[in-house]
Structure formats: C-alpha cells, structure tokens
C-alpha cells in the first residue's frame, strides 16, 4: 500500500513538472476519449429520438399498410388483390379504396368501440398533384401529407410557435409546412402559395419542425424535400375525380387501451380478417428502431475507438520519451533496490494516471462536443436533442484508461529493462531492447486486451456462423463446426506469423556475414536476398505506379493506356534504381526483409493449419455456447492482430517514404539539411506520428472528396443523362384529354424560342404477364424470380426490384434522339423504323439480366385503366438490352423499359413528360408558356435536382464527416505531442546551435520546416491514397472517364490543412524551446 502510494505520488509529481509534454499527452487521450464520448452520446441522441413517443412515430397504436413495395409490406403479386378493398396505382403499388378503409374501420370498432381510425390520403388519378410548390423561381418538389387534421396525433402536433396543427388548419386551402420547406422557399405564416394541380391559392397557417415527421417512415422524403400538412378535404380543391374509389395510402388506428396485449390482439385479428394488409404496431417500431440504434451505436463506438487508437500513438510516443529521459533516474532507482517489475509498475501507474486525467478531460470535451452537434444536422438532415448518457461517459472513461494502459505497456516494460549500470554513464540515454520473447509476450498481452475491447463492442458480428451447414466437415467420423475453427486458425496463424516475422531477423543466417556461414547457409542467405530484392522492388514499383496513375489521371482527366504505360515505365525505372542503390550500400536490408516476409508467411501457414485442427477438435469438445463465446473472442483478437500487421506494414511504408524524402537534394542549404537529418534520425517516431495524421486526413479526405466528387459528377452528368436542363412533368388527365395534353406540350416545345432540342415521353403503369422465349416457352413472374435468385446473392430484395422495373413502360420518340448505349449481344437502340412497332429496349441492370431475358424474346404486359378497370394486353419484342453494369450511377431517368411512343395502340398513359434543352435566358418565358398551355404541367430545372442530390449526399456523409473531423483532431493532438517531445529531446541540440550563434528565428524556422515537411508528407499520402481509391472507383464505374469529377480543389485544401495543423502544433510547442537561453539548456541537459 505504502509503495502504491509512492508510485502514485511520484508519478503525479512527475506529470505535474512535465509541463507541455504532459499537456499534449493528455490532449492525445482527451481527443480520443472525446471522440468516443461524443459519438456515443450522438448514438444515444439518435436512439432517444427513435424510441420516445412511439405512438407518434407510428401515427397511432396500429398502422395498416396495403400491399406494395417497401419493407414489411406484402408484395402485391403475393396476395389476392380484392378490388373492393384495394385499388392498383401502377407499378407494384396498391392503396385502400374508400370501402376498404370503411371495412377496416368497422372491424376495428367491433374490437374497440372507442378506437379512433384515420388515414393518410392518397391523391387519386393524379399521383403528382400537390407534389410541387410553385414559386417565383420555378417549381420545387414538396412531400404532401394529406391527413384528417382532427385525428388526435396530428391535431395535437405543435407548430414552432406553439399552436396545434388541428386548430390552425380550418379550411381545405390551409396548409402547415415544415421548417426546412419554409427555409428553402423563404415562406412564413400567412404567405399564399400555389401547389401544382390546383387553381386556388393555399395559405401557410403554421410551420412545424421537420422532426415531427423525420423519424417516421417518410423521413427520407421529408428531410430531403420538406413537406406540408393539408386536411383531406383538400381533394375538392385538387379537382380529383369524386367518383374515384382510390382513397388511403395507409390507415392509422388509435386504441382506447394502448396496452401491448390489446394492440397485438387487435392487430392480429385485423390481419386474420384482411390477409392482404400488413401492420406496424408500437412494439414493432420499438423493436425495429432498437435494432437500428443498436447498429448505429456499435458503428459510432467503433469509429470512436479508431480515434482513441490514433490517440494511443501519442501515448506510446510520450511514454517512450518519458522513459528515455528518465533512464538515469530508473538506473538510480534500480541501484537503490527497485526491481524491474517495480519500475515497470511505477511507469504503468504514471500512464494510468495520464489515462485517468486525460479521459476525464475527454469526457467533458465529448459531452460539450455532443451538445454542439445538437445544432448540426448530423443524422439525415434532422436536429437531435442532447441527452446525457451515463453509458457513453462511463464507456469513454474506461476505454480511455484501458487503451492508455495498453499503449503505455510496452514503453513501461522497456523501462523495467534499463540497466542499473547506466547510472555510471548518464550521458548514454539509449533505451534497452526488449528480448524477442519478452516482446512477443508483451504483444500477446496487448492483443488480448485490445481483442477483448473489440469483442465487447462487436460481440459476435465478426464471427463466422459456427452453425453454418455449408462449412461442416467430417473428421474422425464426428461432425465439426469448421466456421468457428476459422477464428482460431486466424488467431493462431496471425500470431505465429507475427512471431515468425519478429524472430526472423535474429537468425544467425540473417545476422552473420556470409563468410561466417557454411555453404548451405550461404545459399539460403542468397535466396533470401534475392526474394527480398524482388519484393522491395515490386513494392516500390506499385508505389510509384500508383503515384503515376493519380498524376496522369489528374492531368488527362481520364485513365488512358498511355498514362498507365508511362506510369508503369517510371515505376519500373525508379523501383529498380532505388533497389540498385540500396543493394550497393545496404545489402543486408534485403536479407532482413526477405527473412521477415518469409518468416511471416511460413509461420502464418503453419499456424493456420494448426489452428484449424485445434479449432476443429475444440469445436467438437466444447459445448455450443462456450464455443461460440470462444470463437467471438478469438475473432476479436484476430482482428486486432490483422490491424497490427496492417499498421506495421503502413508504418514500414511511411518509414521508407520518410527516408526517401530526406534523400531529396537539400541544395546545400544547411537549414534544409538539418531538417532532413532530424526527420531521418527520428524516423521511427516520425513514421508513427505520420500514421496518426495519415489516418485522420485519410478518413476526412475519403468522406469529403467522395462527397464532392459525387456532387461534381452529378452536376456534370445530370444534364447529359437527362438530355436537357429542364424536365416538364404533366398528368394525362382522364378520358382522351391526354392526347390534347401531349399535343399542347409538343406545340409549346416546338414553338417557344430558346428550346434547342427536346424529347417527349409517355409513361404507362403496367402489370407483367409473362416472358415468351423465342422457342415458344413461357415464363411467369415466379419463374423469373427463381432465375434471379439462382444468379444473385439471396439477401437482395429481388421480387420487389422485378415488380418495380416491370411495373412501368415509357413511350419514347424514335427520331434518333435516344442516347447511344452499349448493348448486350445482338441488341440495338430503337430506330426510326421501329415507329409504331411493339418493340422494347430494356435497361440491363444486373438483377434484370439475371432473369435470363434475351434479345429476341417477347414480353407480355397488361395495361389496366384505373377508371374503367379494363385491361388491354400487349406483346413486345425485346430488341435490345443495354449494358448498364458500368453505368448504374449515371443512368437515365424514367422506366427500365421503353418502346416507341406510338406503339401503345391509343392506350391512355399515366403521365406525359418531356426533357428539353432551353437557353438560360428563355427559361422564364418557357415556364410561362408551359403553364398557360398545359394545365397540369410542372417545370423542373436540373439545378434544383442538383441541389436535391447535393443535400442527399450531405445527409449521408454528415455522420462520417463528424467522425473524420474527430479523427483529424486526434491526429492533430498526436502531432502536437510529437513536436513537443521532439523539441524536448533536442533541447541540447538547440542549445548548441544557439551557442554557435544561430538566431532564434532560424532555429524556429528549422523546426517549422521540419514539421511542415511532415504535414505535407501526411497530406500527400492521405489525400493521395484517397485520390487513388476515388480514381479506381470512378474508373470501374465509368470506364476510366473521370470527366473532371475528381475534386482537385478539395484535395489541395486538405493537404494545406495538414500542413497548417502541423505548423500550428509546431509553433505552439517550439516557440518557447527556440527562445531558451543556451546556457540554461546546456547546464540543465
């Protein structure tokens, strides 16, 4: 106890006098812990939003859906569609008819006479009426939510100024809009607006926070487009056909007794009585949301741990410097009787104190950061309420302390090995080397500890399914669980591989010069040399080839054969040149590299074979649950080992790059020479520090550059793919009005000045009947789905993909305006001579091709008429299937299938639309003309579509962006720490330079130069790697065509940011050191 107290007080005092060194070490831990705590709190905030007020989220105790596409709903084709209750609205969708709604209401009231039954109205006949808000600038999409305003859930929803929605909506033309819509259109309460499909003006009566809908199933649309509430009486205003029987998209039920038993009994009764419906109850929502939040929590925690591990690099650096600076003190302590383990314990206590204090600071920072996040839209465009999560703080704290202890372990172990004899020669501050065995034992402890952390976060998600039937093998007649054995095989294999790699350089064969070896030894040694030489040359080649690809791709805007060949040539020359130079000066490096790699590979294979056998035996012996637990845990450890191997490899590459950088000519400028020299001398720590910074900048650049690249790509390609800058959408109306609409639209497009070109499209909602093969055989929907399932992974929702893709057909003009495409064998684009012929082209996305449809087959579709209920059947010949594998991101809009516009035998289309190229300054006149001549038309401009795409990308990248920024901040803390440590270590050098007459500014300049070099290197590596990935991805998706979609500006900004962070860290820490009096420094060092 007395000793422990000594350890604590001594460590505490030491940290106190450590000044900046302690401060920056604390910052490293604090930044990591802050990332864990803030991300976990963010997870709790998301969970809070998703799991409170379940009744509101579900819009009642029970929510009833008709058959149709979407999670949890029954596929239309799988149920019998009773036309009394359901109406088809095209594609694979259905809605409740008014009688359907009344039947469900009546049934509910039988079970609970006091229940409240309401619905969300579906716009009959005209699915686009009310979906665009007309403003001065044009039309913008808005999501309509047409409800009974006096339904309790909506009635009590409050507007931002505290009024109830049910109270403010008094007339059919009163609407309440969401805050994001209000912001987008600059609207406030009392404003009058126009919605497409209605002649009357609407009045904004209130504004609600988007959160009231954001966590329902509509969250995607409402956060993306904004929404409005209108009472169901609005249908009179929209001139909907009053005779229509199409009615409700979904039904809401609020019971008088919301107990789970009652809810489940009534929902089951309803499902039994109406087998085609699907229901969602409050319990379903709770379960679904908790699954979602569980996954989000695990993900954010794991991301936070990555930050913490980056911070761990700072701990390793700090503890090593603390130990190095105190070797004499350690020697003194050992001289007066402290044992190695007592010294180790002393330093371990010090690192734990660092961990405790750093984690406490991190917890406070993390909570503050989460409070800041409350104001940003980090979860799909919604703002979240800050909640205090004990779990987040506790987890952050414990993880912080444990990770610090784990990372501090190796340096403290080294401290224990300092020889007491050092006390007699205090100027030698070299740290002792740990023995190989000791290192391996230490690594095992570290891996196990980190593995337990990974396991505690991920549980069994990493493990192969131990009960998987496909991986059963038989050995000695007993059936073994092979999947689980894989975990042990990985664990043992990697451990053995790491051991092999560590032991290899110690072999006599490697250490001794060839003349001291026998003939066999010499041959093996030469073999290793050759193998190492080949490996290093190849690695260098890959590195230079990657650099070449990025450079030529950026210069030429696409990946070309010439660019690739040039890069290859440069890579071969440089790779060979560097290897040749190294071969002349340091031949042994190749032997060591060869031995390390061979040791790793051999031992890895041996370990894996042994592990598989051991795992198989254990799997047969251990009871199932214990076995599962063991496998989960071992997968966690194996993951840590894998990460270690990856980190070591990356550090090795960084080490090589640092060495290479320092070989750049310094033009005899002493400052540059000294900076290079310092980089090379400290390259072990420099590479570790670079690793931290590279991970930070890599994650940030991946997220931002990917987002920017996507935005740029869409901005550049949207018009190309659409074929114009304007889309005009209309509804065809009932009866034969559609022909007039089509003519009017055609006339407007023809006659308005500034319309450079256009294409007209009609869209038909259809029901797929059958595929008729050229040999006369017929395949129905189920057979096509079977084909698809045989070709594709089973987890894809294939049937609904088929229903949606074969749910509509577009009619296109065949005047040669159709885009040029690549087609699968024998296929072609529609030609002018196809006019009037029932021939179709199918866009061959992967699932569609899996159906087995071939050019020359026939597809038969039913064309239902919603008003009359009659069906017409048409048979189309497939003339072409496009090759969409490399173009799925940039596909055209519209249906998956298209036929000549005049091939539908006069059937009324569901919608008529057009894509046109209109000169910018004629847009306003064009809009006016369209509005005047085509009653139901909406004019959409691509720039608004771009805004929507950008918002969508921002929403998806918000959370990763936050994580990446946190990683970079942690990386920044590590670099500040590293600079502080390096200036501390070099006080003597600084003192000597100043005593020789070097000015303070020049000393500072050298330190800044050195650190900006480091920052630049990290920036180039991190951003360069992101660029490489991005270019590869783009090359794969778009056949090498980059189309200027690589965000060079963002890349440059990120690199500058890296340099700025390093410089800031350097200025903060080196300013004081460069100003110290030389005498002070020399006397005290």
């Amino acid at each position, binding site marked *: 106890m007395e000793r422990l107290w000594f350890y604590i007080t001594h460590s505490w005092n030491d940290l106190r006098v450590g000044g900046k060194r302690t401060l920056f070490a604390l910052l490293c831990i604090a930044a990591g812990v802050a990332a864990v705590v803030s991300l976990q709190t963010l997870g709790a905030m998301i969970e809070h939003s998703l799991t409170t007020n379940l009744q509101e989220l579900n819009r009642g105790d029970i929510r009833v859906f008709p058959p149709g596409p979407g999670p949890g709903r029954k596929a239309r084709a799988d149920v019998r569609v009773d036309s009394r209750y359901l109406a088809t609205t095209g594609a694979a969708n259905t809605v409740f008819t008014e009688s359907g709604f009344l039947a469900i209401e009546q049934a509910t009231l039988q079970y609970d006479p006091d229940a409240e039954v309401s619905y969300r109205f579906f716009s009959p006949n005209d699915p686009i009426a009310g979906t665009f808000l007309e403003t001065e600038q044009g039309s913008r999409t808005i999501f309509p939510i047409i409800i009974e305003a006096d339904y309790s859930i909506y009635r009590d929803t409050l507007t931002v100024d505290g009024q109830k929605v049910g109270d403010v909506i008094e007339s059919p033309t009163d609407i309440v809009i969401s805050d994001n819509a209000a912001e987008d259109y600059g609207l406030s309460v009392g404003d009058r607006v126009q919605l497409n499909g209605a002649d009357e003006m609407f009045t904004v009566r209130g504004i609600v926070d988007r959160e009231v809908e954001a966590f329902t199933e509509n969250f995607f649309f409402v956060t993306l487009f904004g929404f409005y509430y209108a009472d169901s009486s609005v249908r009179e205003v929209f001139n909907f056909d009053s005779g229509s029987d199409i009615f409700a998209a979904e039904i809401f039920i609020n019971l008088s007794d919301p107990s789970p038993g009652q809810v489940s009994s009534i929902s089951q009764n309803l499902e039994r009585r109406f087998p085609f419906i699907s229901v969602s109850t409050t319990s379903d929502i709770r379960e679904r949301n908790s699954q979602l939040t569980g996954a989000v929590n695990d993900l954010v925690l794991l991301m936070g741990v990555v930050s913490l591990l980056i911070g761990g690099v700072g701990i390793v650096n700090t503890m090593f410097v603390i130990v190095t600076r105190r070797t004499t003190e350690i020697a003194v302590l050992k001289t007066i*009787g402290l044992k190695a383990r007592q010294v180790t314990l002393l330093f371990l206590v010090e690192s734990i104190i660092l961990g405790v204090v750093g984690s406490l600071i991190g917890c406070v920072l993390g909570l503050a950061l989460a409070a800041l996040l409350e104001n940003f839209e980090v979860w799909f465009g919604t703002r979240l309420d800050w909640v205090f999560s004990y779990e987040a703080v506790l987890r952050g704290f414990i993880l912080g302390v444990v990770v610090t202890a784990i990372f501090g372990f190796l340096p403290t172990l080294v401290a224990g090995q300092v020889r007491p004899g050092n006390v*007699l020669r205090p100027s030698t501050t070299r740290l002792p080397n740990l023995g190989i065995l000791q290192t391996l034992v230490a690594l095992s402890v570290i891996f196990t500890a980190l593995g337990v952390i990974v396991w505690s976060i991920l549980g069994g998600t990493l493990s192969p399914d131990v009960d998987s039937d496909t991986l059963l093998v038989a050995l000695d007649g007993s059936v073994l669980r092979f999947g689980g054995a894989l975990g042990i095989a990985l664990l043992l294999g990697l451990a053995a591989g790491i051991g092999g790699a560590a032991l290899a350089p110690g072999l006599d064969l490697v250490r001794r010069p060839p003349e001291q070896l026998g003939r066999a030894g010499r041959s093996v040694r030469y073999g290793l040399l050759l193998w190492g030489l080949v490996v290093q040359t190849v690695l260098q080649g890959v590195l230079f080839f990657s650099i070449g690809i990025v450079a030529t791709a950026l210069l030429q805007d696409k990946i070309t054969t010439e660019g690739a060949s040039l890069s290859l040539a440069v890579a071969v020359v440089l790779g060979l040149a560097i290897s040749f130079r190294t071969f002349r000066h340091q031949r042994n490096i190749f032997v060591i590299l060869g031995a390390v790699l061979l040791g790793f590979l051999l031992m890895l294979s041996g370990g894996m074979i042994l592990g598989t056998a051991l795992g198989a035996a254990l799997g047969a012996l251990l009871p199932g649950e214990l076995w599962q637990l063991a496998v989960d845990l071992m997968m966690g450890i194996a993951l840590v080992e894998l990460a270690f191997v990856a980190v070591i490899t990356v550090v090795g590459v960084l080490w090589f790059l640092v060495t290479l950088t320092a070989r750049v000519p310094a033009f005899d400028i002493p400052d540059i020479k000294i900076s290079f020299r310092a980089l090379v001398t400290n390259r072990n720590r420099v590479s570790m520090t670079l690793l931290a910074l590279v991970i930070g900048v890599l994650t940030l650049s991946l997220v931002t550059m990917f987002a920017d690249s996507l935005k740029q790509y869409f901005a550049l390609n949207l018009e190309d793919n659409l074929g114009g800058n304007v889309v005009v959408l209309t509804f065809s109306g009932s009866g034969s009005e559609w022909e007039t609409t089509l003519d009017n639209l055609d006339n407007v497009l023809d006659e308005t000045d500034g319309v450079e070109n256009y294409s007209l499209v009609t869209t038909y909602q259809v029901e797929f009947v059958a595929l008729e093969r050229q040999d006369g055989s017929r395949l129905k929907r189920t057979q096509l789905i079977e084909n698809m399932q045989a070709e594709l992974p089973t987890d894809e929702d294939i049937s609904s993909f088929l229903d949606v893709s074969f749910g509509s057909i577009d009619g296109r003009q065949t005047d040669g305006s159709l885009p040029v495409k690549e087609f699968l064998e024998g296929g072609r684009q529609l030609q002018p001579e196809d006019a009037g012929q029932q021939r179709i082209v199918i866009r061959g996305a992967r699932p569609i091709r899996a159906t087995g449809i071939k050019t020359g087959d026939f597809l038969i579709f039913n064309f239902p008429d919603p008003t009359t209920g009659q069906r017409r059947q048409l048979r189309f010949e497939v003339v072409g299937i496009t090759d969409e594998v490399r173009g799925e991101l940039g596909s055209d809009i519209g249906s998956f299938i298209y036929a000549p516009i005049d091939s539908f035998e006069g059937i009324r289309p569901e919608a008529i639309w057009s894509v046109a190229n209109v000169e910018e300054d004629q847009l306003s006149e064009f809009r006016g003309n369209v509005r005047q001549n085509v009653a139901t038309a909406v004019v959409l401009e691509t720039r608004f579509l771009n805004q929507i795409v950008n918002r969508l990308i921002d929403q998806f990248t918000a959370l990763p962006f936050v994580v990446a920024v946190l990683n970079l901040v942690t990386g920044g803390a590590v670099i500040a720490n590293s600079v502080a440590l390096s200036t501390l270590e070099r006080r003597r050098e600084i003192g000597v330079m100043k005593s020789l007459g070097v000015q303070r500014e020049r000393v500072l300049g050298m330190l800044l130069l050195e650190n900006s070099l480091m920052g630049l290197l990290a920036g180039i590596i991190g951003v360069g790697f992101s660029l490489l990935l991005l270019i590869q991805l783009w090359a794969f998706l778009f056949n090498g065509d980059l189309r200027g979609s690589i965000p060079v500006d963002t890349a440059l900004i990120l690199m500058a940011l890296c340099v700025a962070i390093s410089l800031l860290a350097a200025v903060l820490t080196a300013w004081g050191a460069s100003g110290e009096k030389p005498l002070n420094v020399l006397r005290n060092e």
Partner: protein
Amino acid sequence: MATNGLAVQLENVTKSVEVGERHLHVIKGITLNIHRGEILSIIGPSGSGKSTLMGLIGGLDTPTTGRVIIDDIDISRMNEGRLTQLRNEKIGFVFQLFHLIPTLNAVQNVALPIRFSTRRQYDPTTRAVELLALLGLGHRLRHRPGQLSGGQQQRVAIARALANDPPVLLCDEPTGNLDTKSGQQVMDALKEIRRDLRTTVIIVTHDSLIAEQADRIVTLEDGVIVAERIISETYR
C-alpha cells in the same frame, strides 16, 4: 558482518564487453581485498576501467570471470533479482551528479531504499530524519533537490546511501561537481561515517587531494592495478 574482516574481495576478476564485432577487455584480472571500515581511493586516467570496476563491486554488473565477494557473499553469478536485493541492503551509492529524484523532497529521497527493502529494519521517515540530522541537514528536510545547494544535495545522497545501513559505500567522484569547500565537507562527512558506523568507503576519483585523504590508494591503468599505496592503517 564479514568474518575475515574483509568487506570486499575481488579474485582475479575480468570483464569483457562486445563493441560491434570486437571484444574489449576492460578489466584484465584484478585481485583486491578491501577491509571493513577502510577508505579506499581508486584513481586512474579516463578509460582505465574505474567505473567498470565500481559497477562490478556494486553489483551493477557481473564479471566475465573471477569472483566478487561482498560481505562474505559471492555475487559473481547472482541473477538480477538477487543483485537488486544486495544493492538495496549491502551497498550504498553516491554519485558525482547526486542523482536525487527531483520530484521528491530530502526525506522522501532518503526514505526510498527503506520503502523498497524486503527486510526492513527501520521506519522510513524516522530513519531519514535521523540520517539527515546526522549530516547537518535537519533544517532542510522538506526541501526538494532543486532547492538545495550542491553540497547539500550530495549530503542528502550520502544519507540515502546509508539508509539501510550498508557495510559498503561506493562513491563515484563524490566531490567532482562541488567547490573545494563543499567537497571537503562531503569528505569530512564520509570520514565521520566510517568512524561512527565502520562503513567501508570506496571512492573513485580524479582529484588527488581527495584521494590522499583515503587509507589506501589503488591506481588503475588499462584494466589492471599498476600501483597501490597505503597511507594509514588507523581503520584496523
């Protein structure tokens, strides 16, 4: 207590070290007996093996061949754990640069070896206060090393070396970092300790004035004893 009156015996001790691929013979067969209560000075030029010899006597290192016997215990083949215990109980070290722990005050520094002793004879704080008073530092008990003069720091270091009442005190240039007056004070203190506690004091020094105050002077050159001069035998 040594039964033969010898505190330290070196029997044909050699020490070789590997520097790169070369074997360097630092000590080349030294035999030396040091009596209990004797003050012995070891002198010699830089690189003569003084510090290595001191490390061997102090159990900081083990000889390549030969035997080192401290207080009748052969330490030549001891493992690191037992050597640590021996250093704690049988040997006190005094260094040129004092090597006090900067974050601990005088009492805490002196008490340290007692706290880590496996066979504790004294209460750490009481013993530390007593020793510091004995060395004339009763008024500087709670001061940190940074707040003490060089001479005072060295006396704290001597007190620390004496904490577990060791039979042998090893002093590596104990006055090397002090002015003449403080250096003499330290030497006086060492002589008093020898007189009062009969502790064997071995001093490695470059300073002939200091060396002359010992009972015997041993001169080392190139790893061997080249001269030995007895000045006084009062300790007998």
